[in-house]
Structures are given as structure tokens and as C-alpha cells.
């Protein structure tokens, strides 16, 4: 090589090396012209509706400009978009009044999750492998329509099934209408920590089959039996707002609060008095209190009306529930029962609430009815400082739905059993917002049943244990990219309908599930008779019938601007109470709760509970929630089992040690957390971790307590009795780093004994 060519060569390679190393690769992307009008640096606040639980809290979403990477016509580039930046509670929303729970705060990470499904997918590998190929929306819709047409051609419409999240809003109503018009059974809504038992009880006692609303702000005394009402149960933000006012919102008057439970919940930590009783005997305590209140003639038995009459022996003063008897059954000293009764009888207004573990037993319905009768006795029903039922909008009437209503759905365990035993088999399954493979007990064999279903289509935004079994994925928009709505079941004294238009444009090639269903309905060979073209038409139809809160603006426009409509419902649009009780007076008496596993072989009650971060596990994919320290243990990114210090000492278990927990149905290994807030004969474990498949943040992390659960159900409602399993436990090894705590050691243990 001569000198000249050497210089030429170095000049060329040098320049290109410099160019290649120049700045970030982003800077080489093309900048597209923004499709929306945005003022850079100026925040706009838009209304939203939190989608994470049934509480239906109102959001206000901060929207600002941001650079998003997109692909347009095959060309990668960046474009300035109006992006959601922060979620806050809407200050004027009648449910949450400005507050928002940690889960709601983190919901924005759903929209921006790196593992979101960005476009329709068709299965390419074996079922469950997770190998998918991209398919166009048109191709995907053609495929699902041909499947449904084939069923219809064979006259087998009842072989279509849908598993959805539970809910009372328009989305559920639309899915129900779709199935009804097609000729399929209604949607199957399964929730691990569902409240079906309490709804049924409220229907029997009060003629209102729904969750109650509590006027905590005006209460002087609250007796909660197991209800985690400040954490995960019912409408936690609304209840926290009321709780703050009850405690310190009235000068000179501080409401008192007693929590009855065997494992201290986040809510129990706030109680003035914490009262552990034997699991499944909470109803006996409630009737014991009623017995004393009646005996002291603070209230007559007749005050409890229909709710009391359902209980056997009520009018005779509940002689079977005298303090000595209550002590024998619940394990709570008779003197303490008497003191609690005085407290409850003397304070006005007072209210009792029940939820969570006490209702997750084979006698759950009895327990709920007992607490209802107690509330009726002390005059807490529909009274200030007591319990109320939020008036409910009748969606079918309000949205002017026509056509046939879907017939009642089987339960998920029934569906699975039929599919496996040669009963009426499901041919096509639609899955929307539910992950039953993760949240049902193994004995129900939901996974095996789903694997036998010839065709599964999912609307999921993520690959989870259920959607990974699907043949076609039609990914939904995130809640910030689509019309959202909620009809809160509780948390407000007046009827509420939350609604919000899309906050931002879709980031990916996704489509709103409600609109996709409507399009499928139109494309079918025999198009479905649904009165709306799009989901917002359905919403508009509802709001057109509501009175506007603001003069010279109609209710639809007003609600969109505010994020909610609230007020008295016009006649004919409210869901009517069920006046005639279907149970005869004196039907219900205490029966001992059934537990799976005998006490000698399986000495511990096993209590799975909804995680403060992940609920039943549906939020384990959000990194903010993974890294949020648990309120009681400060654990992050972990699973653990809670053990009483005396039990731990007896078994030689220290915090962080690996223990094996086994029931008659399964076994798992997880880290021990030694905590004084649990009975010596009980171990507890948060649900939510233990996902096999659920994005990079949750897959393969921790253990799922549902794996241990026995298929015990409440006899009356067939709801899973998730607190009715017994387990054994043993230490299998020293700390191995799987338990990650934010704080130092708990009080019982010197620092350094477990690792940081």
C-alpha cells in the first residue's frame, strides 16, 4: 500500500467510524410530523377511569408532549405525541375524592409496558409455547368470524363461551348482549377474591344483591370482621377517605374501630383493638354480640326485621349464642365478648362490616347473614354513620339495548368439568381481562380443560398463563387509549357513572375490545342485532337519559368533561331491589366450617390473601408495584409465608429461611417472614406472585398460594372458600436471597440475622 492510498483509506474509515459513533441511535431516526396539536411543555389534565378493580375511582391524567418511537409505512421514526404522564385521583369524583391507591398510581405502567402485545397475533407453535406470528386486523377478524360462523352453521351457538372480569358496567353489558344475540350462554366472571357470598347475603337480608357502602365519616364505632377495607377490599379509597374523617375530621370526636381477624391485615394495623378469633367462627361472634345487645334491651329483636328473621333462634333472643358458648366456639374470652357488645351497643352510630377471609369458608353465607342481622339490630342500615347501598344504574334499560339477553353462564369449574368429562364441550372460548389458569385451584383443572378447547381467542394486552393458550390474540387498547367507564357498585351515597374519552392516541396497533366485538357482530354471516356501531354510541345512549348536573350542557357532554355523572337516578333507570326473600325465616344456623386436610397431618390454617400490590396477581407485571415495599413486611419482588414467632421457634425457622408449605393438593417452597400479627396455628401468604408467564417483571418470580388451595366452596353460592385449606410446613434450608426486604430486621430478630 502506498502512502497516498493509506491516507485515503484512513480518511474514509476514520470519518465513517466517527459518524457511526455520533450520539444516540435515536438521533438517526426520522422525525415524523405530529398528528395532534400539542403545546410543548404545557400540561393538560384530562379525566380518566381507573380500570384496576371494581371500585371505579375517577382519575385526572396529566398529559404532556413526549417523543415516541413509531413505525410508519415500514419506516422507523420518532414523533411527538401527547402522552399521559401521571395519574391522580380526581378531586371531585364522588367515590375517591382526590385519593388514589398505590395500584391506581402505578396503572400508567400498563400503557407503557415494554411487554405489551402491540398487534394481533396468531399462534405459530404448540399451545402454551408462546410462539406467535403477526397477522393483520382484517385477517384476525376474518379468522374469528369464520370460527363463529362455523359454529352457527352447525347450530351449535351454545358452544361459544366467554371468560371475563367481573363488573357491572357497560363493557360487561356489551359482552353479555353480544353473547345473547349470538345465542351463547352469558359471560363467566370469575374472581379469586370475589364477593359473591356477601352479595347473596345482602340480597337475602336487605333485597340488594350488591356490596355495601359505609358512611365511615359519621360513624362513632366500627367493628370490622376480616374486611381489609383500607387496603384491598370493596372500595378502599372511598373507605380511606371516610376513615380519615372518622378518626380526625370531627373536632373532639374520634371514631373507634375494632378489627376481628386471625392474621393482621394492613387495615387491622389501624385498629384500636385487634381481636383474633378461630377462622370461620366470625358469624358466631356477631350473633353473640346480638344476643347480649338484645339481652341488655338496648335494641329489641324485632328491630332487625327481615335480616334477623333469617337467623335460626333470632326471635327467641339467640339463646344458643350466649357468651360462654361464643367463647367455646370462637376462642374469644366471654368477658371480652361482653365488652365488645357494650362498645357496639353504646356507641351511636355504629356499624359492623364483614368481608374477605370470614366469608371464604364453607359457612360464609351464614357469617355474612349474621353480620347483616347485627347491623339491622343496631340500626346501622341506611342510617348516617351506617351502611348504605349505592343506587345502581340499570345498564340494559339506560343504553336502550334490545334483543335477547344471554342465558345464565355456568361457573368456571362447571365449564372445566364439562369440557373434561364429555359434557357440553366449549368449541370457541373468548377471554377478556381474566386469567383463570392462574387464579383457580388446581383441582378444578381449568388449564387442562382450556387445552382441550379447539379455539381460544384472547383480548389480552399481555401474555399470561391463560392468554398463552390462545390461538388468536386481539389486543385491547390500554385504558388511557380508549373509552372507559365504570358504574361503581359502592363507595358513594348517590348513583355514579364514571366515563372518560381516550386520554391519548394508541401507541400500538391495538383496538378497543368493545369496538372489536361490535365489528365481529356486524361481520357475521347472520349479523347480530346490536343497536350500537361503536362503544361510545352505547355510552352516549345511556347518558342521554340522565339529567344534566350543569345547566345548558347535556349530561353526556358534562360527564365527559368531569369524568363522572352523579346524582339521583330518574325513575325507571334504577336497578330495583329484590323485595321477596327466597329464604324462609329461621333458615340459617351456625355450622362448623369445613377445612380440607386433617388437623394432625396438616396442623396449620392456610390463609392466602390479596396482595396490597398485586391483588390476585393481575398487577404483578408493573415494576413500581414489584418494588413497592409491602406495608407489613417491607418485602419487594418477593413471595413469603407469614409465621408466628412461637411457631417459628418450635420449628426452627428464622426470617428468610426457605420453608416448604404443603396441602393435600400441592406444595411450594418460599421464604419465611416471622411476624407477631398472626395466630400460632395459621400461616398466611400474599397472592399475586408465582407467575409462569407474565412479562419480564413477574415471570418466574415467587410462588402462587392458589396452587395449594382445596376446591372447597360455600355451599349456597358455590363460591370458592379460599380460606378453607389446611397445610403443613417445614424448614428446608437457610436464607437464599429470595426474600428481599427494604427495611432492616423485624423487632423479634437482631439486625444482621437475615440478609439485606
Amino acid at each position, binding site marked *: 500500500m502506498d502512502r497516498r492510498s493509506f491516507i485515503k483509506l484512513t480518511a474514509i474509515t476514520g470519518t465513517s467510524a466517527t459518524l457511526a459513533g455520533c450520539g444516540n441511535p435515536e438521533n438517526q431516526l426520522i422525525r415524523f410530523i405530529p398528528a395532534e396539536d400539542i403545546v410543548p411543555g404545557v400540561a393538560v389534565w384530562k379525566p380518566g377511569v381507573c380500570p384496576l378493580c371494581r371500585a371505579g375511582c375517577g382519575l385526572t391524567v396529566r398529559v404532556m408532549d413526549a417523543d415516541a418511537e413509531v413505525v410508519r409505512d415500514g419506516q422507523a421514526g420518532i414523533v411527538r405525541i401527547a402522552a399521559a404522564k401521571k*395519574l391522580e385521583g380526581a378531586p371531585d369524583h364522588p367515590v375517591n375524592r382526590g385519593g388514589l391507591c*398505590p395500584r391506581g398510581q402505578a396503572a400508567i405502567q400498563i400503557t407503557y409496558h415494554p411487554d405489551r402485545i402491540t398487534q394481533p397475533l396468531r399462534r405459530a407453535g404448540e399451545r402454551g409455547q408462546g410462539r406467535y406470528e403477526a397477522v393483520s386486523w382484517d385477517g384476525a377478524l376474518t379468522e374469528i368470524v369464520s370460527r363463529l360462523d362455523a359454529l352457527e352453521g352447525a347450530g351449535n351457538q351454545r358452544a361459544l363461551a366467554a371468560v371475563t372480569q367481573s363488573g357491572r358496567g357497560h363493557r360487561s353489558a356489551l359482552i353479555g348482549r353480544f353473547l345473547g344475540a349470538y345465542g351463547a350462554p352469558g359471560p363467566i366472571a370469575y374472581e379469586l377474591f370475589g364477593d359473591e357470598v356477601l352479595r347473596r347475603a345482602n340480597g337475602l337480608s336487605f333485597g340488594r344483591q350488591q356490596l355495601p357502602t359505609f358512611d365511615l365519616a359519621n360513624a362513632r364505632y366500627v367493628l370490622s370482621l376480616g374486611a381489609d377495607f383500607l387496603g384491598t377490599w370493596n372500595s378502599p379509597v372511598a373507605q380511606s*377517605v371516610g376513615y380519615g374523617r372518622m378518626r380526625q375530621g370531627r373536632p373532639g370526636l374520634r371514631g373507634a374501630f375494632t378489627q376481628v381477624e386471625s392474621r393482621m391485615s394492613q387495615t387491622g394495623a389501624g385498629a384500636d383493638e385487634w381481636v383474633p378469633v378461630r377462622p370461620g367462627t366470625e358469624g358466631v361472634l356477631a350473633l353473640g354480640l346480638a344476643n347480649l345487645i338484645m339481652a341488655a334491651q338496648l335494641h329489641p329483636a324485632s328491630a332487625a326485621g327481615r335480616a334477623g328473621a333469617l337467623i335460626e333462634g333470632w326471635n327467641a333472643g339467640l339463646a344458643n349464642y350466649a357468651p360462654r358458648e361464643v367463647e367455646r366456639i370462637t376462642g374469644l374470652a366471654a368477658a371480652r365478648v361482653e365488652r365488645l357488645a357494650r362498645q357496639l351497643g353504646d356507641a351511636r352510630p355504629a356499624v359492623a362490616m364483614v368481608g374477605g377471609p370470614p366469608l371464604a369458608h364453607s359457612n360464609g353465607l351464614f357469617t355474612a347473614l349474621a353480620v347483616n342481622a347485627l347491623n339491622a339490630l343496631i340500626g346501622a342500615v341506611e342510617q348516617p354513620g351506617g351502611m348504605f347501598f349505592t343506587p345502581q344504574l340499570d345498564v340494559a334499560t339506560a343504553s336502550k339495548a334490545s334483543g335477547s339477553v344471554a342465558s345464565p353462564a355456568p361457573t368456571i369449574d362447571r365449564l372445566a368439568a364439562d369440557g373434561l368429562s364429555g359434557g357440553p364441550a366449549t368449541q370457541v372460548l373468548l377471554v377478556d381481562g381474566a386469567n383463570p389458569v392462574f387464579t383457580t385451584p388446581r383441582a378444578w383443572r381449568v388449564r387442562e380443560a382450556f387445552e382441550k378447547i379447539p379455539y381460544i381467542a384472547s383480548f389480552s394486552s399481555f401474555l399470561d398463563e391463560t392468554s398463552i393458550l390462545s390461538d388468536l390474540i386481539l389486543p385491547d387498547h390500554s385504558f388511557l387509549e380508549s373509552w372507559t367507564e365504570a358504574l361503581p357498585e359502592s363507595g358513594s351515597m348517590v348513583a355514579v357513572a364514571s366515563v372518560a374519552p381516550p386520554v391519548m392516541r394508541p401507541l400500538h396497533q391495538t383496538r378497543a375490545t368493545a369496538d372489536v366485538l361490535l365489528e365481529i357482530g356486524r361481520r357475521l354471516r347472520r349479523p347480530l342485532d346490536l343497536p350500537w356501531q361503536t362503544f361510545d354510541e352505547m355510552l352516549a345512549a345511556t347518558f342521554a337519559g340522565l339529567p344534566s348536573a350543569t345547566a345548558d350542557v347535556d349530561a353526556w357532554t358534562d360527564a365527559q368533561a368531569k369524568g363522572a355523572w352523579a346524582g339521583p337516578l330518574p325513575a325507571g333507570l334504577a336497578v330495583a331491589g329484590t323485595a321477596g326473600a327466597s329464604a324462609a325465616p329461621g333458615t340459617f344456623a351456625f355450622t362448623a366450617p369445613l377445612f380440607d386436610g386433617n388437623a394432625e397431618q396438616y396442623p396449620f390454617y392456610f390463609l392466602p390473601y390479596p396482595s396490597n400490590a398485586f391483588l390476585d396477581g393481575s398487577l404483578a407485571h408493573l415494576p413500581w408495584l414489584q418494588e413497592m415495599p409491602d406495608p407489613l413486611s417491607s418485602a419487594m419482588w418477593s413471595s413469603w409465608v407469614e409465621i408466628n*414467632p412461637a411457631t417459628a421457634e418450635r420449628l426452627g425457622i428464622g426470617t428468610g429461611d426457605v420453608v416448604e408449605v404443603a396441602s393435600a393438593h400441592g406444595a411450594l417452597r418460599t421464604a419465611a417472614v416471622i411476624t407477631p400479627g398472626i395466630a400460632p396455628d395459621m400461616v398466611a401468604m400474599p397472592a399475586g406472585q408465582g407467575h409462569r408467564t407474565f412479562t419480564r417483571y413477574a415471570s418466574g418470580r415467587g410462588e402462587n398460594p392458589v396452587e395449594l388451595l382445596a376446591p372447597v366452596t360455600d355451599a349456597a353460592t358455590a363460591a370458592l372458600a379460599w380460606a378453607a385449606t389446611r397445610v403443613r410446613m417445614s424448614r428446608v434450608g437457610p436464607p437464599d436471597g429470595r426474600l428481599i426486604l427494604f427495611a432492616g430486621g423485624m423487632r423479634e430478630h437482631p439486625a444482621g440475622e437475615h*440478609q439485606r
Partner: protein
Amino acid sequence: MAADLDRCTGCGACVVACHAENNISTVGAGQAAIGRAKHWLRVERYWEGDFPNVGLKFVPVMCQQCDNAPCEPVCPTYASHHTEDGLNAQVYNRCIGTRYCANACPYNVRFFDFFNPSWEKPLQLQLNPDVSLREVGVMEKCTFCVQRIRGTQIQAKAEDREVRDGEIQPACVQSCGARALVFGDLADPESEVSRLSRSPRGSKLLEDLGTQPKVNYLSRQSQA
């Protein structure tokens, strides 16, 4: 700021709200396991008694914005300093990462960035453009959401008025359903936070160290 422990439910909404507002990066399980998780605001818990007579108290702890802050004099670069309105500010561009301030702080509310933060795309779209990102080697901490304080002050000035009491809400205060956290001007005796600070239930964390913290904790009452 005032924190009413009788209202606090320990839910942790403030913790996540703080992450969302202040671009605090998550560090992941591996780093969290060696004590590198960053929570400018944490909810401490104190167990009392043994089963069955057991109690648990929650205490939300953020930077106490001390008037006599131990973190300030130890900083060789004045990254950690006192502002005119009484905040303990941290100037990230001055910080050289000696970590003296974190050692001096008795409240454990200063967090060191052991690496550059990263957000897996498109999670970076959630970032708040009003708050700068901290790079490796820098100490970070609660600012009482100074971006919100300044934003409201500028807005009030533009409208030619005073800032109203309660108008400034740091992210933690805004998120709290039970209204356990109250923020305001302690120099104004009429403000709600001043009123709460005069409560006989009030006390300050580790007050006897002489740090003169500016967060008042109103103790939980017991039922007589």
C-alpha cells in the same frame, strides 16, 4: 408538612406517587436485595406486643427538611444546601458522590445512584419532564416536590396573587385518600399545617438530635 398518624392507613399510595412524580427509577430484584432500592418516601412500621395482644403502627418517613440539617455542612461541594424558603435542596450537578450526606442523615432518606437509570422502552414515556434524571454517582432525595412548589408560585405570581393555603400539593399529599399528609407554609401561622403543628399530639422524629426537622408527626390516639 404534617403527618397525622391517626389517619395514616399504611397503604403505600404515597410511595408509588413519589416514584411517578419524581422519576425515581426501579432498580430490580438483584439490586434491591443488596439495599440499593430507592424510596424517597417509605412507610415504616412498628410492631408492639406479642400475639394476641399485638399492635402495629405506620409512620411515613420522607426527608424531614431539617432547619439544622446534618447533611448540609458535610457536603464539600455545596450540593446539599439550604434554600431561602427552608428546603434542603440537592443540586445534582454539583454532587460528586462522596455520600457524606447519607452517612450524616439520621433519617436514612438519602439514596445513592449506583448506576445510570434506565427505562425499558416505552416506559420512558411516563417520565415527568419537570424533574431531572439523576445519573450514576449522584445522591438523590425527597425535594417536597419542589417542581410543584415553584410551578404554583409562578402561577400565582402570573395571576398577581398569593399562593393559597393547600394549593401546593406534593405528589404524596395529593395521593393520600385518608388525608394523613398536609403540606403548607409553616411561616404562616394561619395555615392548616401550622395549625396541625401546634397540636398537642405533635412531635418530630429524633428531635433530640437537634436537627430541627420540619415534618410534624401527630401521634395515633388510643381509645380511652
